[in-house]
């Protein structure tokens, strides 16, 4: 008889009827009744009121009935914990039953009852079950420890369950071993202390590897994942682990294969380079990965996302296999897009012909997204393989002939990028492009076309005419197009001043008078001033030579790639995001090698500027901007900073990978589409002063814009998009450091602040003398933190008597180091035409904390351990803030929270901060549970104890309310 009939009873009094049946003497009837109850439960009916009656049926020696009751109880344990607890004695009794199945069922069920009071009942049975003679019971009990840990971690430690669990790692039954490994991994991810307690040594890892063969496929995955977390001592250990893992690659289960790949990717790095074995391991990786591509599309997708990471690190592995990444017509779209991406990564001179002919085919498929990406891919090929550029351009021209709107638009965007790589070549495509203007209805394509016209205006006969038709519809265009149109018209005007005078006037009017968009307005004003003040300078600025783009822009940055490679076979490797960006709370750390940890625990760092964590971007643009004030002085119109910035208007950095612009979590690079616009938006805020259009003023102000040191687009973008002012950021009031009496009439007050990842010295200069002061210059003496002015004071005009001026000076750390007493003492010299004044100021510690001072719990713990206890100091700080308030205040000042733990009613905050010279300070803040909070206890550890008192002072200031 079908179970389905249980679903059909819907008449009234059903519950009552069921109750009678549940109390029946006949076991068969009771069984049927329980089935009916479960059926009602699965369709969402509330049968909780039958709980006592159902549980009564548990007193039976019929296993089927018993299992049914447990099925019911398991479901209700979550929603009705109190009721479940009432029958806890039954479970305790069952956990000592003769039948192992019942023992296991009982322990499994108890683990799912999530009320605190269960704890007192569960510990004893669980302890017994962990030592049960039956493996089925032991493996269930192992998982139960993880369940208990989820409810009450400290209990698991106190009751010694961790040790019992570790004993099970040597169990003769592989299922038990696998579950213990799984449970231990979960527990170790929860807290730093647990991680330490559950750490595995090489001997255990060896045993686990030996057990691999006996395990089920799932057990193998648990074990391989645990092995991947182990840190071997030397290449020898790494190699022997590799040898044991390699046979797993031939497994039929994709999860086993990927976990094995993860282990190998980690360990082969540790094998010495000259070892032949290293190459052997590498060669073994490709075939199993390729085989994964014949599995279900879902598994293919996971494999492809992982391969995408691996080929960024080791492209040679897959070089021969490019054909397997050719798309099949029946692949789901997400597989197609991913294959395309990998194909481009593998493209080289040898296979470019084949790849291009594939791409051309793809461009005529039906799926719009796929077609677009294929066209973009052709552009990427052109930029990647120089010798193929010609062929790619020709292919693109063919595609333009199809007149399919989205193909043409995509082709235009791609051709713009090709021009940025190969300027002044392939100009023959401009003509056909101009014939397709009507097809362009997407902003990016229109903007690209306008850029091309502006750039190559002198080679297009009717360029002015074309632009003027665009200008006619100026108001309807999107901002992106408007900005581009403005720039292109100005470019054209500078090339052909005579016949475009009206046009440029019109556009400037439109941009400055008719538009509400500050970006547009400000860019308009800049051009206007430039053109009206100094056309030569304008030419130098607007038509400046642009840096060439390169193909590697779509690669993940190395630090990110390294982190993701350590995450192979996990969700992180599919999202291409680090785990903490999509998981909250529990953040398991599976890092290949931990550069931060090495840095913190290394011998006391020298005081020097070296930041190994942030890879330097070595593009020309960034170099130009690094020291803005060195390249720009108001008197020198040849500077090309502005030119560079303005020509960022499009495509910098190259946005070829458009569809899979990875959002790399927190503060990493973001792809900029409109950097120009944003930049100018910022400028506008500072210099909105249309009355006095004057080139010198303009450039000066640009100098005032705080410049990042890594990448123009990024930093400016960041500043624009994130609110700079955090109410909790500690900014001390300016202090007079040079009284007028000492400074021959010049009074200087100073404070320091951290803005946009840089330190700024904010000065107020007050001229109390009778003469105007001019020709200011500033210099720092050698100091503990290598601070040096990144530029000069921006005071151009003379400082009139009885006037003051506020100046902000960016500070970098390029000075020689000399240890000062106290550490934060800074000697500064200011020179004027009249005299040189030397004064001393003290740099507040908190401005020296850099933005990358966050640690994950595991690294924190290891670092804490490695710093000797002698280097710990403790201090009490008065504050009335709660933990959230404290974290908010500290994080606003770059002291970051790692974890929050609450133990015995106390809250423990683990915080870290990093000085810009790579000096780390770890702190633990204890907040007692007394209400209201009046003070907190802070212990700090650092390799260099000298800085600690200063950090205490800073924290005190931050927490003052």
């Amino acid at each position, binding site marked *: 008889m079908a179970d389905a009939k249980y*679903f059909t009873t819907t008449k009234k009094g059903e519950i009552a009827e069921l109750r009678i049946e549940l109390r029946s003497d006949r076991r068969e009837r009771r069984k049927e009744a329980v089935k009916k109850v479960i059926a009602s439960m*699965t369709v969402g009916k509330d049968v909780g009121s039958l709980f006592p009656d159902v549980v009564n049926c548990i007193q039976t020696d019929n296993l089927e009935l018993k299992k049914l009751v447990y099925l019911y109880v398991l479901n209700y344990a979550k929603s009705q914990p109190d009721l479940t607890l009432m029958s806890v004695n039954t479970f305790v009794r069952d956990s000592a039953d003769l039948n192992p199945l019942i023992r296991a069922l009982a322990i499994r069920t108890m683990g799912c009852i999530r009320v605190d009071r269960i704890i007192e009942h569960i510990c004893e049975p669980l302890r017994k079950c962990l030592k049960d003679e039956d493996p089925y019971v032991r*493996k269930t009990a192992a998982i139960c420890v993880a369940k208990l840990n989820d409810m009450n971690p400290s209990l698991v430690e106190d009751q010694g369950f961790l040790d019992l669990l570790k004993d099970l790692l040597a169990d003769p039954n592989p299922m038990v071993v696998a579950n213990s490994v799984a449970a231990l991994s979960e527990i170790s991810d929860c807290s730093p202390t647990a991680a330490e307690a559950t750490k595995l040594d090489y001997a255990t890892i060896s045993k686990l590897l030996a057990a691999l063969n006996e395990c089920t496929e799932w057990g193998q995955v648990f074990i391989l994942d645990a092995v991947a977390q182990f840190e071997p001592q030397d290449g020898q250990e790494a190699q022997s682990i590799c040898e044991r893992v390699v046979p797993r690659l031939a497994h039929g289960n*994709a999860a086993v294969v990927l976990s094995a790949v993860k282990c190998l990717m980690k360990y082969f790095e540790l094998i010495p380079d000259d070892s032949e074995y290293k190459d052997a391991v590498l060669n073994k990786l490709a075939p199993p990965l390729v*085989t994964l591509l014949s599995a*279900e*599309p879902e598994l293919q997708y996971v494999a492809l996302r992982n391969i995408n990471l691996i080929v960024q690190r080791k492209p040679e592995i897959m070089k021969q296999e490019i054909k397997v990444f050719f798309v099949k017509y029946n692949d789901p779209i997400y597989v197609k897009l991913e294959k395309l991406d990998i194909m481009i990564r593998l493209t080289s001179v040898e296979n470019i012909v084949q790849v291009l002919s594939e791409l051309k085919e793809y461009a005529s498929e039906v799926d719009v997204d796929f077609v677009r990406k294929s066209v973009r891919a052709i552009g990427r090929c052109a930029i990647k393989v120089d010798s193929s550029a010609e062929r790619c351009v020709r292919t693109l021209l063919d595609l333009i002939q*199809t007149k399919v709107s989205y193909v043409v638009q995509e082709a235009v965007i791609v051709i713009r990028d090709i021009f940025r790589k190969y300027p002044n070549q392939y100009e023959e495509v401009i003509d056909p492009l101009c014939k397709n203007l009507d097809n362009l209805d997407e902003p990016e394509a229109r903007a690209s076309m306008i850029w091309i016209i502006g750039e190559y205006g002198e080679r297009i006969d009717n360029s002015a005419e074309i632009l003027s038709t665009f200008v006619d519809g100026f108001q309807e265009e999107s901002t992106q197009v408007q900005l581009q149109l403005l720039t292109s018209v100005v470019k054209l005007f500078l090339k052909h001043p005579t016949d475009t005078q009206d046009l440029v006037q019109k556009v400037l009017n439109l941009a400055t008078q008719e538009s509400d968009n500050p970006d547009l307005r400000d860019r308009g004003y800049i051009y206007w001033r430039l053109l009206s003040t100094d056309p030569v300078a304008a030419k130098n600025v607007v038509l400046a030579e642009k840096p060439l783009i390169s193909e590697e822009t779509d690669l993940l940055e190395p630090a990110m790639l390294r982190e993701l490679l350590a995450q192979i076979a996990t*969700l992180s490797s599919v999202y291409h995001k680090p785990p903490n960006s999509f*998981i909250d709370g529990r953040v398991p750390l599976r890092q290949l090698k931990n550069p931060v940890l090495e840095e913190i625990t290394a011998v006391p760092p020298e005081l020097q500027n070296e930041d190994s964590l942030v890879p330097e971007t070595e593009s020309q643009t960034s170099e130009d901007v690094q020291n803005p004030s060195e390249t720009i002085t108001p008197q020198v119109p040849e500077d090309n900073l502005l030119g560079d910035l303005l020509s960022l208007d499009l495509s910098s950095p190259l946005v070829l990978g458009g569809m899979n612009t990875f959002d790399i979590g927190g503060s990493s690079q973001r792809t900029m589409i409109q950097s120009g616009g944003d930049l100018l938006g910022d400028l506008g805020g500072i210099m909105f002063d249309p009355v006095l259009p004057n080139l010198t003023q303009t450039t000066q102000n640009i100098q005032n814009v705080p410049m990042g040191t890594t990448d123009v687009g990024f930093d400016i973008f960041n500043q624009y998009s994130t609110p700079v002012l955090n109410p909790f950021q500690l900014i001390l009031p300016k202090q007079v450091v040079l009284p007028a009496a000492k400074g021959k009439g010049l009074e200087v007050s100073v404070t320091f602040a951290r803005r946009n990842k840089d330190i700024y010295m904010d000065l107020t200069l007050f001229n109390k003398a009778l003469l105007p002061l001019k020709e200011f210059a500033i210099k720092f003496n050698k100091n503990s933190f290598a601070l040096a002015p990144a530029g000069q004071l921006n005071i151009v005009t003379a400082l009139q008597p009885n006037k003051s001026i506020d100046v902000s000076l960016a500070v970098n750390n390029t000075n020689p180091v000399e240890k000062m007493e106290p550490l934060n003492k800074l000697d500064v010299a200011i020179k004027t035409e009249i005299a040189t004044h030397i004064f001393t100021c003290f740099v507040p510690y908190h401005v020296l904390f850099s933005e990358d001072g966050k640690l994950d719990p595991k690294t924190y713990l290891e670092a804490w351990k490695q710093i000797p206890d002698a280097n710990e100091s403790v201090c009490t700080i008065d504050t009335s803030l709660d933990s959230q308030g404290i974290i908010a205040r500290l994080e606003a000042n770059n002291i970051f929270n790692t974890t929050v733990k609450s133990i015995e009613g106390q809250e423990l905050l683990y915080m870290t901060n990093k000085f810009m010279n790579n000096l780390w300070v770890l702190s633990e803040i204890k907040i007692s549970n007394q209400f209201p909070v009046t003070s907190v206890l802070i212990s700090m550890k650092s390799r260099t104890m000298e800085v600690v008192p200063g950090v205490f002072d800073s924290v005190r200031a931050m927490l003052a309310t």
Partner: protein
Amino acid sequence: MISHLFICSPRGDVIAIKQYRDDIPGNIPELFFDLIKDSRDSIQPVIDAGGYSFLWMKKNGLYFVCTTKFNTSPSLVFEMINRFTVLLKDYCGVLNEESLRLNFVLVYELLDEVLDFGYIQGTSTELLKTYIYNQAIEIPTEQSIFDSLDRVVSFEPKKRIQSSVASAKPLALVGPVAKDRKNEVYIDLLERLTVLIGVTGELIRSEINGVIQVKSYLSGTAEICMGLNEDLVVGRPDRYAPVYSSIILDYCSFHESVLLSNFEDHKQLSIQAPDGEFIAMNYRITADATSACILKLYTLFEEIDNRYLHLTLRLNSTLPAAYHACNIIATIPMPNSTSAVSFEIGGSMQTAEFKTSKKVVIWHMKRLDSGGEQAIKIKMNIPEMNKSTKKEIGPMGVEFEVPSYLASRLEIRNLKVFDPRRALQPQRWVRNVTHSDSYVFRIAPN
């Protein structure tokens, strides 16, 4: 680790849901359906839902969805779903909504045993028999026909593992039926072809993916010994070096129950066969897969009056004698501006239709014998023809099945079952089938 596992129908009705951890609140199935509702075709199988992830697969028209809050291995989850569906098939006979609803207690029992606290405990049919107490209810056989119809209607990718009708019975069934089939083992050799042929008939890509799939009703300790072609070669030192062998595999992988001690020398697989369905061996042939190219296409274009375009397609079979391809469905995209299409069909047992909405011609042939040819003339009416119109035609994808044939020429030369408890050799069924996976001809002139 996995927080939920649920199965729901394409309409969004939950058939079974099991919550293993209570770290994700909310009505999960509803949230899931909201997510996939709008973008059924393009949404990825792994979805970041903000703080937790959905991992989902569609199997036999049903959604199998897992949630997790951890940085879990997604392939682990997908493989688990794969095995879980096999389990359901083994225990319930067929996998569809009705059979799951009929056997809901059994389904819950399985859900309980397969995962504990989100950790996979075991998915072997054999092992679970010890712990599963419910009996399956078979659904009437005509239902399974509906099942297969369902699949066609929903345009699902072809089920990659087709179980023979004879083995569509619950395996874990106790009782008279089960006794009848105690002594049987089914072995399927299935190959899928990926072939890409260029405009001039050149072979751009060919690949054979094969599996040896075993479904055993032997229960217990039986050992299956399978001898493959003795001149089988796995891998080659240099991919272009000639290897004198009839069959060269690029790579193969095996189920954990397969012992390979005799594989190197005698190409013998000995399988400690667990009960139920599993894939004993997976293999792939790329370098020398010209044998995968079993269909050839000849095309002829005729342009008339700048308004009509005639395309003649002649599909030839190069299969060895005695083999035939059947259920051949060719899909040919037409130019977007095509206003009407008519056909001239030159052979029996074929039909063709033009799907106006998608602008494709579906050409269906019942059968194509060895050395035979099927032909069609497609007459397109294209009001605005230009130079690139022709390029929009194609590529033509062909789906087909070749019964009793393996493109790789892999064979099971001998098959024995050793079972100390059995005097008689059990019934052994071996079936060979070759399918198209992606068999594509490019037809548009470049």
